[in-house]
């Protein structure tokens, strides 16, 4: 299972990459493996204000729909529209091309709620 060191994680199997006040969000390798082939992604909207834990979209496989949550509060500033054309990128590249959305953070204090690699490994082991 691929769990890169430089990312943060959530109990909902999302990863977060922090660069300044910008957080990029996607689902983990474990999550895409559990979901199987992603066939549909519902993205949040650019400009949407989100609170930590809000349901902002959906990732769907043939068998199930699972919600995408905002791991941190702020404003959605970018979404990965490539996924609308080819959702399977989430399976083939969950941490790179399969990113889902970017949030301009409101409060960096939220970061304390995220898991590090060891914490996430514990969660899925």
């Amino acid at each position, binding site marked *: 299972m691929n769990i890169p060191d430089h990312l943060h994680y959530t109990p909902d199997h999302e990863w977060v990459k922090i660069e300044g006040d910008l957080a990029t969000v996607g689902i983990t390798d474990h999550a895409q493996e559990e979901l*199987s*082939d992603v*066939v549909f992604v519902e993205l949040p909207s650019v400009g949407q204000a989100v609170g930590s834990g809000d349901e902002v979209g*959906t990732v*769907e*496989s*043939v068998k199930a*729909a699972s919600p995408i949550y905002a791991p941190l509060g702020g404003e959605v500033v970018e979404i990965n529209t490539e996924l609308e054309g080819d959702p399977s990128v989430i*399976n083939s590249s969950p941490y790179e091309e399969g990113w889902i959305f970017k949030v301009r953070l409101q409060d960096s204090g939220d970061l304390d709620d995220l898991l590090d690699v060891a914490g996430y490994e514990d969660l899925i082991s």
Partner: protein
Amino acid sequence: MSGELKETPLREVHLELGARMVGFAGWDMPIRYGSNLEEHKVVRQAAGAFDISHMGQFVVEGAGAARWLNGLLTNNVDRLGEGEAHYTFLLNERGGVIDDLILYRLQEESFLLVVNAAKIGEDLSCLKAANKERQVELQDRSEEMAGMAIQGPLVADVYSRMMGGRTLPPRNGVDDFEMEGQRILVCRTGYTGEDGFELFCDSGAGSHWFRSALEDGARACGLAARDTLRLEMCYPLNGSDLSPERTPLEAGLGFFVDLEKEDFIGREALMAQKAEGLVERLAAVKCLEEGPPIRAGCTVMDGDGNELGRLTSGTLSPSLGIGIGLAYLPREVAQEGTPLEIEVRGRMIPAEVVKKPFYKKP
């Protein structure tokens, strides 16, 4: 699902292959080995192998077995020759479906019934109730048999390699023989719309034959692919598209019901329903644009937002790349070309009634 899940005789192979297992009808079954979309495609283009050991097998034998079965099941056993199989129903008195099954005529008065896993108990009590005077010898062989379905355009070659040059029986034909000291029962049937066969053998030999199918060119496929394949063909799933409240006529499966023959359970109810005319029919519904996958339970509406019914099955068709589903709809609506809308989480997806099946071989 309550209690312990049953394990199939092919389990060791599933675990070796890293299958993802899920509970289905009381059994721990492989839902997929890797990508379920690839597994779907393999069956459409080459050959896939499914574990169907969860399904039940009953043997019915003895003088008068054919007549006895004819009094219970909807299809006409007299039209079934030795070494042939057909699809048939066991109904309740109201004409509702208890189970849909395949009946194999092995010999003049020797039959095998292959039934749905979730219905083994109910089917058996129904058959036993009809056999109080011991008219026939009825045995439940479900625990002793392994089953596998090998499906796809290349199965004839796979079979020939597995069985040392032996050829498959014709469509719906049964071959009952011994190979390597094991009794094998093969029928050229399936649940995918592709050429294929279903093989039954003793539990102990199951893994051997499943491995042999894989070595000889088939790829292991799970329940997820089995479900998308059958839905593309509009083959019903009992418990979803068929139920004790719905008759085979409403499900559009009257072809497997012989109302002309003397009697079977539910016949009177079906005759009455036919005379009165059907109120609803199971329609094939196809989305007109891409969107979130439609699923069982989604509401089907007309253009004015009136609820017409709910999907009994729904998925994103891997072959067509669009949402497909089945729903019982008022007869006047269940006509090819009727525009509909399907609600998915508050969003309305435009759809229409289409001719069955969704998928036709190119």
